């Protein structure tokens, strides 16, 4: 199934769950609400039309500074402003980061930008198609259902997303840090975590080691 056909089949099957979709650069992508995620994932795995037996990747993106980065196009030392190179044009532009309906949406306001987006990459070996599912989350309620009951590989991937972004997975049996250590403060892949921040290396006894 190609990207457009896959998106159409999913939209027909889950008219309420699929909020938006695109096939930028041929990658079939759907945006779903977190309430619908688990049912959708179960159908993606079990349904004969999709047969997504692989959860290839599970990650997240922090969209809080998307498009807000100050342009770095200047000579850093002299302060002389220089126009940066033009952005490469695009015939079929990307629709932009997924948005999440907020409290104001009930009053007819457009949905606001989502701080976090949890990104799932599925692959179907029998049907040879890929699908990206995005679940937008708000900053103060960053929690989504765990898919560990469907794919065993989600265990570590969800732990990594918790470690790096501080997104919780409801129903995960062992949601603890994986790449950093228990005493680590903050979530390093959040955009508000400074790239050069240092933290003391905590030893097994719970104390910071002397040479850190």
């Amino acid at each position, binding site marked *: 199934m190609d990207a457009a056909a896959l998106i159409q089949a999913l939209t027909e099957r889950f008219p309420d769950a699929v909020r938006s979709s695109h096939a*930028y*650069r041929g*990658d079939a*992508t759907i945006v779903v609400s977190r309430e619908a995620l688990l049912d959708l994932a179960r159908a993606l795995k079990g349904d004969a039309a999709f047969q997504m*037996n*692989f*959860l*290839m*990747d599970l*990650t997240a*993106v*922090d969209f809080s500074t*998307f*498009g807000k*980065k100050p*342009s*770095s*196009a*200047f*000579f*850093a030392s002299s302060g002389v402003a*220089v126009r*940066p*190179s*033009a*952005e*490469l*044009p*695009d*015939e079929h*532009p*990307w629709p*932009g980061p997924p948005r999440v309906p907020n409290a104001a949406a009930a009053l007819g306001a457009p949905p606001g930008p989502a701080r976090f987006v949890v*990104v799932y*990459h599925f692959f179907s*070996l029998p049907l*040879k198609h*890929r699908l*990206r599912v995005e679940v937008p989350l708000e900053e103060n309620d960053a929690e989504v259902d765990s898919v560990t009951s469907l*794919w*065993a*590989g989600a*265990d*570590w*991937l969800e732990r990594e997303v918790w470690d*790096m972004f501080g997104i919780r997975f409801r129903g995960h049996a062992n949601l603890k*840090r*994986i*790449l*950093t*250590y*228990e005493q680590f403060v903050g979530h*390093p*892949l959040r955009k508000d*975590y400074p*790239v050069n921040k240092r933290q003391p290396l*905590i030893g*097994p006894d*719970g104390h910071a080691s002397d040479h850190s």
Partner: protein
Amino acid sequence: MPRTIPDNSVPAAAAASDALETRDMLLNVGPAHPAMHGIIRIVARLDGEQIVDADVDIGYLHRGFEKMSETVDYNGVIPYTDRLNYVSPLINNVGYCMAVEKLLGISVPERCHYIRVIVSEISRLTDHLTCVGASAMELGAFTVFLYMIKAREYLWELVESVTGARLTVSYCRVGGVKADLPEGFAEQCAKAFEETRRVLAESDALLTRNRIFVDRMSGTGKISAEDAVSYGITGPFLRASGVPYDVRKDCPYASYDRLEFDVPVGTRGDNFDRYLVRMEEMQQSMRIVEQALRDMPPGPFQASPQTGRSLPASEMVDQGKVGNIPAIRDACAVTDPTLDGSAKPLHVSIATAEKRVFLPPKEDTYGNIEGLMQHFKLVMYGHGARPPKGEVYFAVEGANGELGFYVVSDGGNTPYRVRVRPPCFAIMSALPKLVVGDMMADLTPTFGSINMIGGELDR
């Protein structure tokens, strides 16, 4: 790190009956252990010599690859990708560059595709040689290790002749590769493969019917096809369980769809099948490289088409100074060998024509003002290629399985987010499943067959 120690007290029932007292033992393997291929800690709970539970602790080599990628421009990420799977860095280079090219919507010339295939397959060979050699050594077959490292050395010499480095290659560029294959590469390659084939035949004779080796490998570290798929395991590890998934066949990229090769598949999903799959994949990789060298479009030649001789760079500069651009535009300069990509009129056949992405040939940078400006617009701070806003996922077949890059752009000159899907992360998460029920001594061949690479696992 505080860790809850399981209750090891004697079960009441056992104490009540007159049985011998037994209790489980916690065995801490690692973080630094000679049979561990990286820094990793396995806390195994043993009943006698049998593993009843295992807890895997990773992250000792976490260097923040994904965070660092957000601070440099698109080409600046490439040296970081070298350090993911440092046994086959060229495949990481190819995967990342092809992901960014997909984001940019550009294509590269056919010869560049073939070069990428060739260097990827040579890397796969070195990776499999390291994996099989090291696991054989851990089971006592030290000779095989030395033989395989010898063969790997021949292949690394090939890599060095192409990229100028052995491990930290940084060979690919967004939109192409750094330089064309060196002269005489095909002959050098044939020679290296002859040696490699000899080593593989010797190793095969030493291992495949060796009673000690087979007893240690066969039936240990078993995983079924369903479990392997559920864990997201890919690559030779998955194929040994009987699932014929190979990114090169199922989602072909570069020029794999035009090359003929077989995907070896195991049946039992144990360590021995994984060994056999890797041995056969090395033969297939050599087959791919030989076809690619035969089929690839010819590269440029050194001499200038007008005069039949090459042009010294100083002469080219003099011509440029007097404005004689038409005379030197298509000529090939002989530049200093220390210059990046020197003496190679390379760009037409190995890099994209999109000038906003790829650095011009050094002959242009030093020979005319357009080339100089193009160069500076790409390398100066705050400039560089600026892909359109968007997100892409692109996967290549790494030595350990599907190596995917997910790149998000906000239209700036640095990636907004780079995520790598490391193949051995999925396999490592299945390690408890693999070893529980086996003997403690089986942990070594099982862990060896995973081919854990710390740089890729922890990023």
